[in-house]
């Protein structure tokens, strides 16, 4: 597990939305991304707030459709404005990105905030060489000659660990192996030295040994460039390895938010418990049981009333009355103090976790805590 310093993370102390956060590099406040369709409005993201600081990593966790990628695309301004309604605030270096013109936003994309994508084979253009695409990414923000850009690209490829980068730069994406492609993607993402890097499932398409190499590389580079990183994943193992803070998303909303260690050791939301239960123990603990979360993610068109997780929640009978059906819980601190917020009506989640959930699924984590 990565080093984690709760005191150095003001984000955890300021969970309540405020217009802007003084020293956070990225500060998202009450972000909502809605897609009007002929069937109604799809509320892909709603009421989302979080901060990321320089040199720190935020892990956003959730199932597919939970709004992870939609929010990151909103940060990059990649949504088609004609088909999307976005509200809230996204401060990057003190500037609200949502107030920028598309041209101003475009100039920041790739330079201040860059993104690396899940499947580097489909995320790179099959008809252009790797070098061409990296050089393009550099030259769009830097008025340099092709030659200089090429040198810079070779340098970056070398930095991300591509052997013989001066030759491989002229290869096409399909000529690279999966891990190499992801390294090239990272080189492309970091070539403009962005202060903010969003990695969307960067290792999902890779096999396990390569995954570890890529994660190590990301960490090294983060240290070297002192950038802020958002890593989007459904894999809590990746989060455990990389993140300083963790944001758990469900049905377009944050359902639990706090320092990584807090979330992984003392999760307070049944959905997070479910995620933890469905992770194979990376340490190979065979006593751990994989417990999948029952049911399917809810429709974002017609989310269930009350707590959006209640149809799948096995602990809802521990909440008195019909609270879970009727009242949506607020994201607020629970038993673990102000740095750790959760969206749940349970009043004693720590006890339930310690007594009912933990022994079932992750004896290893019981000991660590």
């Amino acid at each position: 597990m990565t080093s984690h310093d709760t005191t150095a993370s003001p984000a955890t102390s300021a969970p309540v939305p405020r217009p802007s956060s003084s020293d956070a590099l990225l500060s998202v406040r009450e972000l909502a991304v809605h897609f009007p369709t002929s069937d109604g409005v799809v509320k892909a993201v709603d009421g989302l707030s979080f901060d990321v600081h320089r040199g720190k990593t935020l892990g956003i966790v959730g199932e597919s459709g939970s709004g992870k990628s939609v929010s990151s695309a909103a940060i990059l301004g990649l949504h088609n404005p004609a088909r999307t309604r976005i509200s809230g605030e996204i401060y990057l270096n003190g500037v609200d990105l949502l107030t920028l013109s598309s041209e101003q936003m475009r100039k920041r994309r790739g330079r201040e905030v860059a993104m690396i994508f899940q499947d580097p084979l489909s995320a790179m253009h099959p008809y252009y060489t790797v070098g061409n695409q990296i050089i393009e990414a550099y030259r769009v923000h830097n008025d340099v000659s092709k030659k200089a850009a090429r040198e810079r690209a070779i340098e970056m490829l070398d930095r991300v660990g591509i052997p013989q980068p001066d030759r491989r730069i002229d290869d096409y994406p399909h000529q690279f192996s999966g891990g190499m492609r992801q390294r090239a993607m990272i080189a492309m993402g970091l070539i403009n030295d962005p202060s903010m890097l969003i990695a969307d499932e960067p290792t999902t398409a890779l096999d396990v040994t390569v995954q570890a190499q890529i994660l190590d590389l990301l960490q090294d580079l983060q240290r070297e460039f002192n950038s802020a990183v958002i890593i989007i994943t459904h894999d809590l193992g990746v989060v455990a390895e990389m993140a300083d803070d963790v944001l758990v998303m469900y049905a377009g909303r944050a359902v639990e938010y706090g320092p990584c260690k807090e979330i992984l050791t003392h999760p307070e939301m049944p959905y997070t418990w479910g995620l933890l239960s469905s992770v194979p123990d990376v340490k190979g603990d065979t006593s751990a049981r994989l417990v999948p979360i029952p049911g399917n993610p809810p429709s974002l068109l017609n989310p269930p009333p009350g707590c959006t997780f209640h149809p799948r929640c096995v602990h809802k009978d521990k909440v008195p009355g019909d609270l879970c059906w009727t009242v949506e819980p607020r994201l607020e601190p629970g038993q673990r103090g102000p740095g750790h917020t959760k969206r749940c009506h349970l009043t004693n989640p720590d006890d339930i976790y310690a007594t009912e959930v933990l022994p079932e699924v992750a004896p290893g984590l019981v000991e660590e805590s």
Partner: protein
Amino acid sequence: MFAYIVRRVVSGIILIIVMSLVTFLLFFASPIDPARFACGKNCSPALQEQTRKALGYDDPVFVQWGDFLKGVVQGRDYPSDPALRKTAPATIAHCPAPCLGYSKLSNDTVLNLVKNAFPVSLSLAIVAFIIWISGGIAFGVIAALKKGTIIDRGIVGISLVFFAFPTFFVGLFLYQFIAIQWQIVPIPNYVSIADGGFFTWLVGLLLPGLTLALFYMAGYVRMTRAFVLESMGEDYLRTANAKGLAPRKVLVKHSMRAALTPLVTMAGLDLASLVGGAIITETVFNYNGLGKLAVTAARNLDLPLTVGIVLLLATFVIMANIIVDVLYAFIDPRVRVG
């Protein structure tokens, strides 16, 4: 790659030889007797036999086919009557190798006839191709960018109309109104560049070119629109946007580059078949290209000309297929290496 091309060319030649035989067989399987057709009025059976001999249709079909193949290599004399060669050599037409045959009905070698008609069809195909490709792609991209709007629906709807209308209708319509009634352009007439210069050539080709182009453009608008929309959903397009590329560059370099690849295949094959003659358009505008020549050959039961044109068209299509395949390797790097 070289071995691949050689293999394709060899199989193409075999295919062409087989097609020549099939054309011969089909021709003689027809219930219409070309000799009776060419024989005058009041034609007695004896006269009909003489006519058959004059046309060179009196030998068994396989012998005729063999003579044809031999002629390709060695050249041929028409008629190949030894008695006539002795007494009246001036009446014998020689068709030098490679002899695709000699059309008695046109009094010329098939090769010459085709040579004369080819520039017309080629010119028409090129002009039509330029109009339909540029128009098809431009309107297709606009429709894709304005997807779901009235502009999109308008473009797709209008192109459907042109697609649905028969070419001869569109051709006659343009001919009658633009050339005859409003006289916006002179009455279409093919003038080669050598005879009239580039401008005259182009003006002569505008209406028939447009007629053909409107038909093809409809399909290309719809295909371009579909391919551009498809490429817009691709991950690499999101990547390009995430880099901060200007929208125009994303569209042209990333989206259209991907969308155009399948279009190239289709455009190549369409162009090849069009170079082989546009039957209806050439007939409507009275352009003596390969299409009209083919109709004439078929209607006059002119076997040598029919065989010649069939083989020529087959060659075009086979060549176009090879070229498109090779071209594809250059367009799509994945094909090149893989």
